[in-house]
């Protein structure tokens, strides 16, 4: 099971951060060439990220957020970065399936040029406008390279003309639609960043909320946020225990060749069994459960 609980942004023009980006345990690191890099630093950041990726062996998925291909930097970003084979290209401000298709073709060409396995470089898109939200499924389904949709923060709020609230009402509509689009396309849904790094309490509340909504992970801006997200995404012992008992009851019913699964006298539907299987697979993926034992 591929985890993307945390996707950590790392400014592409900060050598110290590039060197240490891999040590904090994020599921994915995203080297940013876009919003965190000033216009005058675009070339420097692109070459720093290229050299960091070339020389450092990162222990996790490595993504690069390129500038949009409608800017003067997007194509150059792709040309330079694809040569060092990122795991994932993240396109910001995606609005149409055509954006995705064009980049897909460029990646295909680069894979041939550099002799990489075809299809080995994935893509994800950040949706940051109302138009993008409306096209979210088309974007998600535009290429087999697509592995995730993310909802962008400030740009999205500006576009739908609202601002941040404590309980996240402003993202209600966008998050809801993005989740459905991503799930229909069978890819990950990733939530936006929470910028107030010192506000642990609200960060925990927001992360808990988006996990419950169905998001597969969250973009983070500081290593201190990683463990918090991972903890929230780790199944509890109670959940694991329950899942084990559901699976045991299911297996027993299979052995009995009975179509009815029951646990403690209650009937269990097949979706409940599927959820239990997912819980155990997830617990296994996060290292909390192995071979029938909770760790």
């Amino acid at each position, binding site marked *: 099971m591929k985890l993307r609980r945390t996707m950590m942004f790392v400014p592409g023009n900060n050598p110290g951060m590039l*060197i*240490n980006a891999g*040590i*904090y345990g994020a599921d994915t690191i995203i080297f940013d060439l876009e919003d965190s890099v000033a216009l005058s630093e675009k070339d420097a950041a692109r070459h720093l990220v290229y050299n960091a990726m070339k020389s*450092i062996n990162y222990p996790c998925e490595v993504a690069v957020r390129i500038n949009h291909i409608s800017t003067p930097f997007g194509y150059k970003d792709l040309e330079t970065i694809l040569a060092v084979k990122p795991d994932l290209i993240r396109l910001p401000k995606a609005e149409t399936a055509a954006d995705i298709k064009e980049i897909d073709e460029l990646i295909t060409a680069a894979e041939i040029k550099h002799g990489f396995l075809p299809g080995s470089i994935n893509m994800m898109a950040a949706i940051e406008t109302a138009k993008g939200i409306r096209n979210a499924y088309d974007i998600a389904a535009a290429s087999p390279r697509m592995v995730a949709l993310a909802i962008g923060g400030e740009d999205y709020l500006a576009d739908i003309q609202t601002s941040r609230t404590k309980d996240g009402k402003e993202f209600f509509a966008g998050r809801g639609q993005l989740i459905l689009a991503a799930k229909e396309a069978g890819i990950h849904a990733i939530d936006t960043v929470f910028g107030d790094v*010192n506000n642990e309490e609200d960060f925990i509340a927001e992360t808990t909320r988006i996990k419950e909504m169905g998001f597969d992970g969250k973009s983070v801006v*500081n*290593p*201190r946020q990683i*463990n918090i997200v991972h903890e929230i995404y780790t199944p509890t012992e109670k959940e694991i225990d329950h899942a084990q008992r559901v699976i045991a009851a299911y297996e027993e019913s299979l052995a009995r060749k009975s179509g009815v699964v029951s646990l403690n006298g209650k009937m269990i539907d097949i979706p409940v069994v599927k959820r239990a299987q997912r819980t155990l697979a997830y617990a296994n993926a996060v*290292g909390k459960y192995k071979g029938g034992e909770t760790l």
Partner: protein
Amino acid sequence: MINGVGREIPESIAGIKNIKPYINPFSYVPTGHLTGPAIKVNKPRSEKVLSSIEQAIDASGLKDGMTISFHHHFRNGDYVLNMVMGVIARKGIKDLTLAPSSLNTINEEIIPYMNQGVITAVETSGARGKLGQLLTSGQLSKPTIIRSHGGRARAIECGELHIDVAFIGAPACDTYGNINGVEGKSVCGSMGYAMVDAAYADKVVAITDHLVPYPLFPISIPQTQVDYIVPVEAIGDPKGIASGALRISKDPRELLIAQYATAAIEYSGYFKQDYSIQLGSGGASLAAARFLKEKMKKQGITASFGLGGVTAPFIEMLEEGLIKAVYDVQDFDIPSIESIKKNRNHQEMSASFYANPHNGGPIVNQLDVVILSATEVDVNFNVNVITDSNGVIMGAVGGHQDTAAGAALSIVVAPLLRGRLPMVIDQVHTVCTPGETVDIVVTERGVAVNPLRSDLKDNLKAANIPLMDIEELRNIAYEFAGKPDPIEVSERIAAVVEYRDGTLIDVIRTTV
């Protein structure tokens, strides 16, 4: 001759007596008796309070060639050392050995007296900045002797460091010489380092900015040891003496190191009811205190005692009942000073009680776990905390050797890279603490267990931390930063580093 950590120690070094090479942490067993101060007499109704430092210097009989001492509890807010040295210099006294428990940047003011021959030798725990550069330059006529806090107490008590006159900055002092560190405008808390000086110096001069009527209590340094008292305007700058409550680091790399160190403690086998702990005052140590506190609460474990160098996180644990008692040789912040004043379970102790290897038993021998920082570590687990990447003195040994030797589990924390420099290397420039006494090295990229401690290695397998050999850590560091060229040094020895037992563990040569 080659000593026990592979360092070349000359058989004779001009200005250093009785050279004994370091062999291993506990091999040197001294014989004989402790030394003592000059016999003192004080007749009834005689006056100890004098009107000036100059009078006190005259009364003490200070002459050319003698040894004077100071204590560093006022840290970078200390006025006493500079003030007294100024008077001594004006009096034309020369060729003194300066033996403070440590030196801070504020003491750079005394550099001219080193140039003028007022001070010709230094024995201390360490130095920074320009003072460090001067001590590394070989300019003084004798090599500087670097000692740990326990080693200094030992040297004083066994007579290797004989103090003729001790000048003691006294936050509160009564008219008959009783001293404590918890009252007055320049409070520093524990007087632990000064206690040894007061007990063994031939003459003891208290310098105070808070002279009170007799009797003062509580008493940290008693009237029986104090000869003269000089009231002055100010003995220190409170802002430099103690910081407010230190904030827990927000540096993610320090937090990661702290997290690994805490996990190492948790799974080491020593994390159980009534364990004991010492933490440093560095960023990663303070952060480790917070993580450790959470784990102690979660698992219902309390510690029997905490030791230090005391900082606010320790005080919080004491007040919440997570630590039964704190033993304190020095305070770093205001909450710690307030605590030692009011909390009976917060106990002041001398440097000898803390760490002297040659007494009936220092408290470090009872210590289970210590977290220590490091400038460099090598593949033999030897630690350097005194010289920088240019070979210049820029730190202090402090209690490093003492706690590493005493604690059942000594953990050294350091970033693997500082800027463009690797911190785990083939050979440290200066060995301060021998690798034999270092059990675990924790960096942000991996944790290495000393091969001497295979028991620990087995325990830590469950800790979910990146365990690797120390050579692997070095390789990662070299991969990023390259292998540093050795620092070029001359034949001239600028300083010797004593191990806590008085043997020589290394020498510091002048750089070229």
